[in-house]
């Protein structure tokens, strides 16, 4: 069976999602998307200027990409809902990454307000992908409220510290029926592969690609790592043991005596 990620009725082949907030140049965003063959890209509505031809970031996003507008800047559910509606009205589609961040020091999300926004926006027909602190209980509530996927952070945004929330994300992957997409904190392709080996649906990366010496090369590396991690997951990882297995087992004689 072909392995495809389906979210909100859309079939996605490339499981590397790309964020656009930190690039040195809009043209680099375009190159990165082309080089990585990413299909899902997130852009903050606050950065989209439909009225300016030269400044409109959307002009640099290839046609085949699926736009997931995010609610960056929202401090509570009310603001996130308003931004989502504005995004839709501006013609940015109905995929929305809910970011509710009432903490400007560490940029940590507010799970409770995110849930409230998800409840409202799902009912309005948005494909809602909430960015959250990893938490199974809230993730289950998000699933019940109609979230199309959940996006737990791997580490705080922009830190490149890697997949530090692995144990909780592992539980979420096991327990939820919607895709779990690790978003934020992933610093290296190997860490993205780690997320995918665990069974995550996708990985979203921005800082690690945007601030690399060669963003295009790094995007390609991430794309391949995500693909490799997915294949590894589907292939069933060999059990890892920390002791050697004896070629002459001590209990072999027991089997020989049975008739």
């Amino acid at each position, binding site marked *: 069976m072909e392995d495809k990620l389906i979210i909100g009725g859309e079939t996605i082949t490339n499981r590397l999602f790309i964020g656009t*907030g*930190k*690039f*040195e*140049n*809009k043209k680099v965003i375009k190159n990165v998307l082309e080089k990585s063959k990413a299909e899902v890209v997130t852009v903050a*509505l*606050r*950065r*989209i*200027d439909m009225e*300016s031809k*030269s*400044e409109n970031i959307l002009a640099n996003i290839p046609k085949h990409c699926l736009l997931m507008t995010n609610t960056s*800047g*929202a*401090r509570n559910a009310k*603001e996130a809902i*308003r*931004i989502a509606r*504005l995004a839709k009205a501006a013609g940015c589609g109905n995929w929305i990454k809910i970011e509710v*961040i*009432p*903490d*400007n*020091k*560490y*940029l940590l999300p507010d799970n409770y307000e995110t849930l409230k926004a998800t409840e409202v926006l799902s009912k309005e027909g948005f494909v809602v992908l909430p960015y959250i602190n990893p938490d199974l209980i809230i993730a289950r509530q998000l699933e019940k409220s109609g979230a199309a996927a959940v996006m737990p952070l791997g580490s705080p945004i*922009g*830190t*490149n510290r890697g997949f530090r929330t692995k144990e909780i994300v592992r539980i979420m992957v096991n327990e939820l029926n919607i895709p779990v997409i690790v978003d934020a904190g992933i610093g290296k392709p190997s860490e993205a592969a780690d997320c995918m080996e665990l069974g995550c649906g996708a990985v979203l990366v*921005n*800082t690690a690609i*945007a*601030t690399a010496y060669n963003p295009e090369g790094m995007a390609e590396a991430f794309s391949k790592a995500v693909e490799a991690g997915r294949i590894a997951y589907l292939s069933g990882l060999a059990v890892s043991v920390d002791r050697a297995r004896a070629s002459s087992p001590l209990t072999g004689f027991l089997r020989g005596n049975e008739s």
Partner: protein
Amino acid sequence: MKVEAEVNMSFHDWVLQFKRVNIENFFIGVTDKEINSVLNAEVISVEQFYTLLSPIAEKYLEEMAQLAHNLTVQNFGKTIQLYTPIYISNYCVNNCIYCGFNINSKIRRKQLTLKEVDKEANFISSTGLRHILILTGESRKENSLFYIKDCIKILKKYFTSISIEIYALKGSEYEELIKDGVDGLTIYQEVYDEVIYDKVHLAGPKKDYLYRLEAPERALAKGMRCVNIGTLLGLNDWRKEAFMLGIHAKFLQDNFSDAEISVSIPRIRKTAGGFKPVYNVTDTNVAQIIMAFRIFLPRLGITLSTRESPEFRENLIPLGITRISAGSTTVVGGHTISEVGSAFSEQFKILDERSVSDVKVMLEQKGYQSILKDWVGV
């Protein structure tokens, strides 16, 4: 130094604790070992921030620069937000000795009509900018809140982010303006030393030190999204002022975690009144302050105005700057109505007169994306 703020403490209450500390003596004790430890620390304490402002830290400027640069790229990416001021009136009742608009300045006074505001806004928005900063002198009679609100209504047609740099307001007035669409407040304390403050603000409502100091807290308590505070370098020993500004920013970040806090450190420039800075602040000093801020508060916004020369601004950008003004004029109606150098004098002399498109090109050459729109009014 006991410096932790207690719950519900105002910044002024917190600051009073520092008055017992002899800052000069503190610097004497700073060692190379301490600086090295600060440069490798995960979290920087208030005491460590002060260490970074010390004379001995000047030996470590390159190390500080590397760290500050990496922290800036990590937190803000390779982006710089652009904005420009719109001077709508230079009527002012204050007598601030360093300001070209002060009540005794023999300059021609002007307040833009609403039609003129529209003309200026139309021109500025044609440059692609979506962030505007409204400036007025302090005169509740001439520049009433009603007038400012009317201007905001016009500016909303052209800009997605509207900030104000006007006289200090009551909490309820900030609340009104937020409802009208203002999302940012810029208010400089000018000088944190209360004795000097009293000496340079000879008359007018601005003479009330505490009312101005607590304006950011009043605005943030009402939900202001962004607050930019600042100190005017040259009125006092820069190390003391930079320290106070840094802890003020930290206090606001800690107590209003959902707001974006940023700082400015303009150096005094020659004004219409001919005021000259009392304390010399070198380029090296400015760079050290910016780097110390970035290392102390990695998520802090740092704004750089056109008071600095183009070359110096370009060199400061990688050290921690997140926002710069472009296409600036400090003349009322200076974009389309009044000619620079005419009778309508500038508030202060700007040194970087480059247009928005020139600044964009410069940023691109330096490997930075200029962000002209970074908010959507909600």
